[in-house]
């Protein structure tokens, strides 16, 4: 299985990507993607794929989904100008406000879409994994909304650093199942969810939270999240009068990023995904999968992963639980391979500083995950003054309070400064 493309192949795949022709029938984005799952789950995946084909773009499902997005999630989310941040950066910044979506992040777009699908497919209960807890909260809320029981797997490391979200899941009626195995974070939680699913492939719907995993998840999640970019694109035209020069999104599994980028692929807009640079470049010090990973199969799909020479997946580090993942969605792997999207990193420290700067200048407390996008955008704007920048403000930072209070304010200057 290869991961490096010939020039002509890359050009063809780039075109196919932009034309919306990927993934192909086998769930491939060029070499990436596919479906690597235990035999027990093969029929379940086939049913899911059938279900997606049948319902996802059907008028009935779309009517229901769009209504929930509008009336329950609160879409369209706002597009905010950021005048004081723009002034500081010497550029023009616009924010797509996914933090204003119900439960506080873009995750809900996917969660409610899949919950509606689960209901149509006759699932008896829903399981989900979560890292930052945002997808867990979103799943709990979406399942309550459609009336399905929900169990959420969450690593004990994440349970600690995202405590507010654990309480919220409980309140929303979900069962939170602590995962003590593996790296005790998102990756371990996905493994546990898969194990559970194997035990009842027919009764369980697995509500995966990012654009990762086996086909059709990367496709399904992208379709459900692409509302971000579709809205933002139109809002930029309406409010700013033109598309941005560049768009930034943080990349954990890659769902908010693909959600934003997908609608902009055909446009003359530079696209930059931002991974967690953690504390350094060494293996285990970051979660910079696209920047430093190699091709492999993890949790159902062929993509880039952080692994050693023996193919053992490595533990990662990021201050943000939602980016702390050794894999990445296969579509991003291809977007990088064909050169349509650039992926960079921002460190823990840069993210913390960016979070503070946004608080001070615009009164928006963003998620630590999202803060990585700001950090990279700030760096970029210093090299490209006067440009128009769009940033996906993927979620709010309330959940990060336990982590933030651990770190002293780094750049505390007064709000009025």
């Amino acid at each position: 299985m290869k991961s490096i493309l010939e020039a002509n192949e890359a050009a063809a795949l780039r075109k196919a990507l932009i034309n919306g022709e990927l993934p192909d029938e086998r769930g491939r984005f060029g070499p990436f993607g596919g479906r690597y799952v235990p035999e027990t789950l093969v029929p379940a995946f086939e049913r899911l794929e059938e279900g997606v084909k049948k319902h996802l773009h059907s008028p009935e499902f779309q009517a229901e989904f769009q209504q929930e997005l509008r009336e329950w999630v609160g879409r369209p989310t706002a597009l905010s100008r950021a005048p004081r941040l723009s002034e500081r950066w010497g550029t023009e910044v616009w924010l797509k406000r996914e933090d204003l979506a119900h439960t506080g992040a873009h995750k809900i777009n996917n969660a409610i879409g899949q919950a509606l699908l689960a209901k149509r497919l006759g699932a008896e209960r829903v399981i989900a994994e979560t890292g930052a807890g945002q997808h867990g909260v979103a799943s709990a809320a979406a399942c309550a909304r459609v009336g399905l029981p929900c169990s959420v797997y969450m690593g004990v490391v994440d349970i600690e650093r995202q405590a507010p979200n654990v309480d919220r899941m409980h309140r929303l009626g979900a069962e939170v199942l602590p995962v003590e195995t593996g790296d005790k974070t998102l990756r371990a939680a996905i493994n546990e969810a898969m194990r559970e699913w194997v035990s009842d492939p027919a009764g369980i719907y697995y509500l995966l939270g990012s654009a990762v995993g086996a086909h059709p998840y990367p496709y399904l999640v992208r379709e459900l999240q692409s509302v971000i970019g579709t809205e933002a694109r139109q809002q930029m035209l309406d409010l700013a009068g033109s598309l941005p020069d560049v768009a930034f999104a943080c990349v954990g599994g890659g769902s908010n990023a693909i959600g934003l980028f997908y609608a902009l692929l055909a446009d003359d807009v530079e696209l930059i995904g931002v991974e967690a640079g953690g504390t350094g470049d060494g293996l285990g010090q970051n979660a910079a999968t696209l920047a430093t990973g190699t091709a492999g199969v993890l949790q159902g799909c062929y993509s880039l992963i952080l692994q050693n020479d023996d193919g053992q997946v490595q533990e990662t580090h990021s201050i943000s639980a939602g980016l702390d993942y050794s894999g990445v969605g296969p579509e991003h792997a291809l977007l990088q391979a064909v050169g349509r999207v650039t992926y960079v990193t921002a460190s823990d420290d840069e993210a913390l500083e960016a979070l503070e700067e946004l608080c001070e200048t615009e009164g928006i407390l963003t998620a630590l995950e999202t803060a990585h996008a700001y950090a990279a955008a700030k760096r970029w704007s210093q090299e490209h003054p006067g440009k128009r920048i769009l940033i996906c403000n993927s979620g709010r930072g309330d959940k990060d309070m336990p982590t933030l209070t651990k770190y002293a304010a780094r750049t505390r200057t007064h709000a009025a400064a």
Partner: protein
Amino acid sequence: MQPHESISAAIEAAKAEGRTGLVPFFTAGYPEPAEFLNTLRAIAEVGDVVEIGVPFSDPMADGMTIQRSSFVAIQKGVTLKWIFDQLESIKGEIKIPIVFMSYLNPLLAFGFEALAQRALDTGVCGFIVPDLPFEESGEIRHALEQKGIGLIQLVTPATPAERLKLLARESRGFLYAVTITGITGGDSGLPADLAGYLDSVSEVSTLPVCAGFGIRSAEDIVNVGKHAAGAIVGSALVEVLEQGADPAIFLRQLR
């Protein structure tokens, strides 16, 4: 005889003796890498085919026992290459066919061509890859087949009839009939409708069928043996090794 044929032959031979083929599974280098070859030798004394687990960081089809053994083995430095090296060091000594159980990624990292070659060189006759459904298996199957190494397919109670036929046809060595919908290491007993399920699998398979997942006792093997040619014993054996007990004694009372 191709390497993969030696697997079926071993199971058939047991059957011919009126026995249920015994396929012990253990994680390479667990609990101690230094004991790996001794353990292998002891197991090979009793088993008909031996299944060696290549440890992986993300064993998503496995229960707590095999997960634990995997993590410990990785921590103690066990790699696919190390396992091959160990086997090479006693080349010819193990008389029963060896099968590797490995998740796809370590194999991918090793490279499929190199994998097939080293397997051939070290007496590894087949592979079980629990996260590789048939549809994604083209490349590795092709590489293995070049050397006569078998890619063993799994079927489960959830496998639809049509697919069962496909997998039975495409398997090599034996057909792995997963007894339960679930992960390895369950101890809730074998399912009630096991006989019917195994009969239906055996019916479509020209290869011997080996049942695996949840088989822990002599009684289980008797039950399974009525409807399948072989039985795979995994977590129960790993627990024995974990406790430092003699695997051969444990296996002998199963046989």
